[in-house]
């Protein structure tokens, strides 16, 4: 092959040209990648679906809640801040984003709540099964973009927990991303492409936010074929970037409970700081005089209202509860509540939103002793 033309140039020149092609092909992306501005937190926000950390911080400071609850759609479907406030006397606020997991809860706690001037006295985290020690669960898709907004340049706890979590082969990918300096930019760039597509087809001046909302509604779980299940349309378990945002992630939370969802989850409780964000939660809360409370939700029960623990998680739950108590955290578990029968549930593990009023009363009755009486006005301390 191609042996004719090679005779036209010297071997040295041919080698130099090969090196030049490879060099330009690697150096130009590396230079550009390192000079790209880091996707900003605020610039991306253009819809009511978007989570804006700065706005959330301002909102927290304005409201000055005494009790903040963190979680995903498990929390959203169960708790309405105003209803819980009415039941408990605490001034409540939520940091809840559907489809998120412990890595994002940690970033919400550290970079939104603690980074604001608001200092609640209590913080509750809603979780299922072994969510709290499964830091690499649900990090892709829309969550990856969310993480890129929430993360800061220097995240020692994040680096410690995430180090070495990917399989060996992916270390090559991680090294490549570090070399080219673009590990935070892919979702940002793909979003720009979607924005460009929206702009090109903006027939009636409909805003991008509304168009994303329309797409979310179009591809909502209840619009999919019955034979395809939750991920038949996307080709993977994660919401599709560029289409699915927090609402679609909510849908994935709504899947019927089965061990499959937690098939890859840790089944042995590991309290080490490299294993999860849980110890970092506790340490940071202690530094700011915040009492932490972890609430385990009851997953969708059978027709008789039963939802026994999966055998692999029984030991885990005992160890988790003991660890939290040993570290001064409150712990509650609604999964043994026989009154929470199927009639309370809407879809998947979500409580029917119409019953949030009743749930607030029930929840407060369960955690009253652990959370304690509210201070005057139920508010926190602004720093």
């Amino acid at each position: 092959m191609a042996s004719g033309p090679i005779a036209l140039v010297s071997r040295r020149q041919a080698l130099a040209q090969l090196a030049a092609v490879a060099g330009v092909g690697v150096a130009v992306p590396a230079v550009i990648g390192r000079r790209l501005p880091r996707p900003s937190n605020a610039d991306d926000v253009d819809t009511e679906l978007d989570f804006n950390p700065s706005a959330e911080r301002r909102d927290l400071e304005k409201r000055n809640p005494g009790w903040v609850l963190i979680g995903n759609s498990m929390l959203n479907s169960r708790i309405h801040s105003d209803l819980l406030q009415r039941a408990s006397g605490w001034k409540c606020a939520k940091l809840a984003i559907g489809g998120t997991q412990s890595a994002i809860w940690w970033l919400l706690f550290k970079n939104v709540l603690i980074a604001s001037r608001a200092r609640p006295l209590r913080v509750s985290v809603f979780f299922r099964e072994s969510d709290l020690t499964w830091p690499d669960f649900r990090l892709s898709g829309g969550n990856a973009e969310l993480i890129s907004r929430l993360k800061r340049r220097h995240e020692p706890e994040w680096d410690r927990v995430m180090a070495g979590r990917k399989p060996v082969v992916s270390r090559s990918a991680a090294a490549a991303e570090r070399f080219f300096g673009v590990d935070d930019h892919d979702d940002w760039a793909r979003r720009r492409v979607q924005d460009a597509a929206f702009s090109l087809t903006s027939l009636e001046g409909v805003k991008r936010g509304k168009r994303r909302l329309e797409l979310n509604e179009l591809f909502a779980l209840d619009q999919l074929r019955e034979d395809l299940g939750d991920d038949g349309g996307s080709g993977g378990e994660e919401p599709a970037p560029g289409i699915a945002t927090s609402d679609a992630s909510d849908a994935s939370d709504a899947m019927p409970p089965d061990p499959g969802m937690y098939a890859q989850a840790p089944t042995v409780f590991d309290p080490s700081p490299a294993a999860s964000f849980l110890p970092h939660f506790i340490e940071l809360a202690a530094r700011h005089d915040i009492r932490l409370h972890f609430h385990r939700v009851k997953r969708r029960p059978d027709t008789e209202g039963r939802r026994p623990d999966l055998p692999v998680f029984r030991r885990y739950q005992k160890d988790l509860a003991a660890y939290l108590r040993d570290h001064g955290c409150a712990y509650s578990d609604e999964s043994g509540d026989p009154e929470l029968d199927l009639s309370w549930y809407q879809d998947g593990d979500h409580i029917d939103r119409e019953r949030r009023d009743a749930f607030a009363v029930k929840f407060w009755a369960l955690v009253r002793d652990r959370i304690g009486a509210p201070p005057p006005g139920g508010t926190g301390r602004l720093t």
Partner: protein
Amino acid sequence: MVFQSFTYFWFLVAVLAGYFALQWPVRRGAAWARPAQNLGLLAASYTFYGWVTPWWLLLIVTTTLVDFTSARLLSRTNDPRRRRLCLTASLVATFSILCAFKYFGFFAENTAAALQSLGVPAAWLTGNPVGRFLLDVGLPAGISFFTFQSASYVIDVYRGQTAGRHSLVDYALFVSFFPQLVAGPIERSENLLRQVERDRRPSLAGWRSGLVLLVWGLFQKVVIADSAALLANKVFALDDPTFPVLWAGVLCFGVQIYADFSAYTDIARGSARLLGFELLRNFHHPYLAQSPADFWHRWHMTLSTWFRDYVFIPLGGSRRGATTTARNVLITFLLSGLWHGASWNFVVWGVFHGALVAVWPWLSRVVPWLGRGGGLPGVIGRVVLTFVLVHLGWLLFREQSIVNIGQALQLAPWDAPAAHWRMGLGLVAEAWLYALPLMVVLPGLARLQLLPAVDDPRLLTWRWTLAQGLALAVCVMGILLLRSEVGSDFIYFAF
């Protein structure tokens, strides 16, 4: 092992290191060096193929041994009867393996349905151990490709177009050469086997273009194809899509399947070029085709020529009148459809394309601009019409349920709300933005004659060196910034 993984990257690095360690003795004329290189490549190819499912190697080894032996026997006898017998035995054995693993489920399902409708019990079909095994085992990757490649060699030997080979290692490497093993291009002995049997002289210029081709293929896969797949998969998962959303999904699938298959071909050709092999081209801007027949001259060209040479022409080709030609075209495309998959929608897709190719010449007599002429508007009209028809075909290809295809074809544009038109346009625009380099930039450069061939002396100038470097940089940057979060297998792995 899949191309779009670091596993493949390190595998290729290891293969190249071993291969080029033997290149110096090859250049010096050491007789043992090339056989050693071929043996190393064969071991690498079998490692590649058996990486996930080692027992698949049994199939490719069996096919190789059967066809190698048949060709040896064919070349030893001039008795026509014995030669026919030998060819038949070889084809029956080779295609039996393909049929058993690819078509048994389809056959069993439809036969059982037919028997049950007659009141005859059919549980024995799938209730026996062999039936259960074939149903459970799934389709071995690349079986359609290496079967066709191997069979073509035996037929060529039978026809006297090529000689029966003596080296089993060389032949086994021809059948299993890892860059093109799983999804083609479907090679012919006169191209690949000849290269296997000669000393390769990989040039540095070939390395440059191979590298660019490989990375460009990767870009097509992880940026264009996987992004379009996300959109198409979402649409085809909808229970009740409207007209604009469904057709947006079809257009996204059109992007996906072209980019996906073209990506595989380019990564295969790029990998092979690094080793000093030149594989056949498989695509030539297919969406610029001006007729259905032209489309098949540009799409999966190595499969089209295989069916032309080994099915269409033996059936009589176009030499026996219009009606017989149309029949031959229909049979050829029916088989081509079945080659793509054991499902009725592929049969319908094949017949659809066969009908288009058969009918188009007649239509051209009635509507002359369909054939030729008409200036630029005529060309645009033919391209657009062919594009629309091909995408109608993609609906049949993508949607496996005949019932759903029927429902999709009944959708009316006027029933869809404005928001759905907006969403449909947005989906298509997004897919095509990703696909711009493949669909617009590359054909444009080709039109301007700015895409030199691998042996074009212009490539040796510094200007072209810089251009190649920048092209590589753009691909790398695109992969880093725009790769799809959700990856998927190459579509043609399923065939």
